[in-house]
């Protein structure tokens, strides 16, 4: 399934019409472990524009997660500038960073990171709680977000009562619920089988198309990267390749060709497909 990658300047069309959502300039991240210093990032410069869907690839330890943490304002660069929607976030206080994570960024993790023994609905509500949104509205918006990821009717289920794919959808709903402009996903399909992974890609593509949501997706799997629009490859803390994807895969088209893993997931997937149609 490997398509030929073409080295190019990313999405020139978008670049011409709008300012980048994420702009990092010569960013370094050094972990000081006392005896030794780990240079996780050594001068990364990158611009990501609204509505882009970027797959970030690279060998283990190449700095992908470190970059995502910086992009997500979970961490601050040791050196260099980071402009988020034009605002320099390198110097912001922890409190201001928390507000950015809350409103402008959605995270999806490999390990789902849902609160255990807490209903899907309450998991999704979490960012709204920290935005100070009243209970009634929180519930409404969370139900809506769960519907978007095809989990209507599972609001009261706890993570332990959901499949891996369903848990990841709850996590995506949580990332979406506060209408962020950027979705950061660090190996979201790493723990999922291939069909469920494509279902997640279907949701990402739909969000990217319909909401013009900017998505950064870290993945080890080349075929998953094919669902994105652009690939950035890291090596040794630097960007090595930055290419647009030719012959991009459309998850909604791929899904019917895959054998269904279980009927439940298929039903959910077709829900999603209908919602998109």
């Amino acid at each position: 399934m490997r398509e030929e990658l073409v080295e190019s300047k990313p999405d020139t069309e978008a670049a011409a019409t709008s300012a980048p959502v994420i702009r990092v300039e010569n960013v370094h991240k050094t972990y000081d472990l006392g005896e030794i210093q780990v240079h996780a990032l050594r001068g990364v410069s990158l611009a990501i524009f609204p509505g882009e869907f970027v797959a970030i690839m690279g060998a283990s330890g190449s700095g992908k997660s470190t970059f995502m943490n910086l992009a997500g304002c979970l961490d601050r660069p040791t050196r260099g500038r980071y402009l988020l929607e034009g605002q320099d976030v390198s110097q912001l206080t922890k409190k201001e960073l928390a507000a950015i994570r809350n409103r402008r960024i959605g995270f999806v993790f490999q390990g789902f990171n849902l609160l255990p023994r807490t209903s899907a609905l309450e998991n999704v509500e979490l960012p709204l709680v920290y935005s100070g949104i009243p209970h009634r509205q929180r519930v409404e918006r969370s139900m809506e977000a769960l519907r978007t990821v095809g989990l209507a009717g599972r609001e009261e289920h706890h993570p332990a009562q959901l499949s891996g794919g369903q848990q990841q959808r709850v996590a995506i709903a949580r990332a979406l619920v506060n209408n962020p402009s950027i979705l950061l996903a660090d190996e979201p399909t790493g723990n999922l089988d291939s069909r469920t992974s494509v279902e997640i890609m279907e949701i990402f593509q739909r969000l990217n198309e319909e909401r013009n949501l900017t998505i950064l997706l870290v993945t080890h799997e080349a075929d998953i990267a094919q669902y994105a629009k652009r690939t950035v490859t890291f090596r040794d803390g630097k960007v090595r390749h930055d290419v647009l994807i030719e012959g991009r895969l459309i998850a909604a088209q791929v899904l019917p060709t895959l054998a269904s893993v279980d009927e439940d997931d298929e039903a959910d997937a077709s829900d999603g497909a209908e919602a998109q149609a």
Partner: protein
Amino acid sequence: MDFMAVLRVAMRALARNKMRTALTMLGIIIGVGAVICTVAIGEGASNQVQEQIRNLGDNIVFISAGSVTQGGVHMGSQATKTLTVGDAEAIRQQVPLVSKLSPGVGSQVQVVYKNQNWYTRVRGVGPDYMDIRRWPVSEGSLFGQHEVAAASNVCLIGKTVVENTFGDEDPVGKTMRVQNLPFLVIGVLQSKGQSPFGFDEDDTLIMPYTTVQKKISGIDWLNFIMCSAVSNDAIAPAEQQMAALLRERHHLRPDEDDDFIVRSPSDLAQAQAQAGRIMTLLLASIASVSLLVGGIGIMNIMLVSVTERTREIGVRMAVGATEEDVQMQFLSEALVLSLLGGTAGVMLGVAGSMAVSSMLRWPTLIPPEAIGVAVLFSAGVGVFFGYYPARKAAHLDPIEALRYE
């Protein structure tokens, strides 16, 4: 993050480990319960002493004749003959801090009515005596200045004397023999029960002091003078003024000892109440050590909870919780824990002190402010011991917390 949401999260976290929550609260419950119980018992006892002080009389100052020691031999208390009616009159006129005053003489007498006889003490006093002692006459009436001037053979008798001489008969208006002299019973005293010093107050006769002086003891001096000060605060200065006056009247040189004794029974009772209060305070502070232990228990469990929920903290931070939000969350959890424990402890303390009063017949009294203080204090314990774990949670690095296994 709104208050209700914080509270709901705290309640849920505590409900998740019910056994652990209950055991953690136990320290606070026992601590608060023990403090409430000791305070209730102490307050009950001190309240009883206060009650007895009030019962004793109206800001009483008591002057008695001094004891005499001759050639190293103790001749008995109230043996000096220098305290006189003149002294009493001088005090009445020259010490304005004294509002009421009664001269007094005492003696032991044989009382006979029909074929019943009884040995009791007689107090010869002035008409103000009953007022000073706050001791009403239940039947009949008190004698007045006229009977004092005339040294009439009239008396009032206490309940115990009535029981042992008249039995069921109404004594008022009857004549009985006291030291073989006929006395008209003009009244019966209201029962006063035991004095704080342990003797039966109702086993007494009351008659004009002149009558006792002339017809029973054959003396012209006084054994005591009983006074009321104008207020509780006036007791001490009144005592000083009276002592100075008496020394002057008795021509005592500065190096000579008083030949009288001035004291106030409330001094003694106050000292007793004070000692009781110190005891209560001591016991309550010992009890509050268990509150401290309870607080340490809370801190311990909160630290465990922070470690267990490291990942949860990471997730909350990733979706926008600030350090303050996280700190608030864990602090409110500690607070809910200690407040619930404190409330349960108050209930335990109230139940415990009720059990003490009904089973051991000890008076207990729970001052309402003690309950308020106990609840506030346990809240304080929660905040104090919850602060460090909450801070620890708030200062976690979100990335490390998310990675925590």
